[in-house]
């Protein structure tokens, strides 16, 4: 039940793009076609989950015991950059087909602020799932589920947005609105729709 609440709240209610504003650059950059959106979405699900797992463990067993929590930002970004590089090398070796599908998106993910954002959120922010329960930090399992939920939310938003954008390309918006402005306004309307989920968990 607890895990279901985490998934629902991260995918729909606190959607990473429409309510937390993380990962907007890849959201705008890779949403011109549904196929690229699918690739990027899959790559983010993969890396975000792995990165959260590794950074959570690093924080718990290295940074906290040594009392160097203030180095979180530096440590996490280096771990994420190294991890992405490593995933790229491993994928190339063991699954070339997956590499060709996700390959181009992997380097982009290092600067996807959703990855660093989620890694930092799960080790600093306190959550309360049941009403009345004291807010506390997430455990490892909950953190990973949280990351999976955020990543699914990202992929969902990206794919919906790409679908809408493909249709907008066929329309004739006013000249100044062409390209980014109309895309941003579309995102705004989608965000309004996602606000409808507020309060379900």
């Amino acid at each position, binding site marked *: 039940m607890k895990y279901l609440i985490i998934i629902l709240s991260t995918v729909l209610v606190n959607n990473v793009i429409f309510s937390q504003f993380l990962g907007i650059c890849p959201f705008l950059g890779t949403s011109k076609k549904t196929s690229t959106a699918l690739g990027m979405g899959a790559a983010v699900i993969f890396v975000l989950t792995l990165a959260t797992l590794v950074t959570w463990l690093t924080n718990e067993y290295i940074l906290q015991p040594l009392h160097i929590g203030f180095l979180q930002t*530096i440590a996490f970004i*280096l771990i994420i950059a190294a991890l992405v590089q490593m995933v790229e090398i491993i994928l190339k070796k063991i699954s070339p087909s997956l590499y060709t599908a996700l390959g181009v998106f992997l380097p982009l993910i290092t600067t996807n602020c959703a990855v660093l954002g989620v890694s930092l959120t799960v080790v600093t922010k306190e959550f309360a799932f049941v009403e009345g329960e004291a807010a506390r930090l997430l455990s490892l399992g909950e953190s990973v589920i949280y990351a999976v939920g955020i990543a699914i939310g990202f992929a969902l938003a990206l794919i919906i947005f790409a679908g809408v954008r493909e249709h907008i390309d066929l329309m004739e918006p006013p000249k100044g609105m062409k390209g980014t402005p109309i895309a*941003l*306004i579309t995102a705004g309307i989608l965000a309004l729709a996602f*606000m409808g989920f507020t309060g379900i968990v």
Partner: protein
Amino acid sequence: MSNNLQTFTKGLVKENPILVLLLGCCPTLATTTSAINGMSMGLATTFVLLLSNIFISLLKGFIPDKVRIPCFIVVIASFVTVVQLVMQAFVPDIYETLGLFIPLIVVNCIVLGRAEAFASKNPVWPSLLDGLGMGLGFTFALTLLGCIREFLGNGSIFGFGILPETAKILVFILPPGAFICLGFVIAIVNKLKKESH
């Protein structure tokens, strides 16, 4: 001298990181719920941009080309940690509001972008001007967006009430308003750009 001046002013208008180049959208959308928040975020980013540009320009002879990106990230992340700790100590309220987006300056494309495109190829003085210009351009765009959203959503600018209670359009300080506002501001900038050609 005119060259230096150009390095400084290009970030303010012609190559404004947000309004023209569309870099660093996340803090732009997330922290502009009020003019003061937008401005604090802009200034924090300017500080990091300025110092990282200076240091990367100084270190450019020592950093091997192959590992330059990780080196840049370490330099940037160090300054971000400095900003984070200083803000936590002296302006805890603003630090609370901006929250996650202060550490996220590390992954702001503008900072790494300027390090890679400008500071790693130019001497210290132009890099400093470039960092300052780009940072102030970023601050300007964030403050502008913050003013518009605060005015429409809360009826005030920098906390001074202007519109009556009934004229507030709450949605502009909620997430959808951020997207819609930025969309219209960029549309207006595009229009002005076309006319000036």
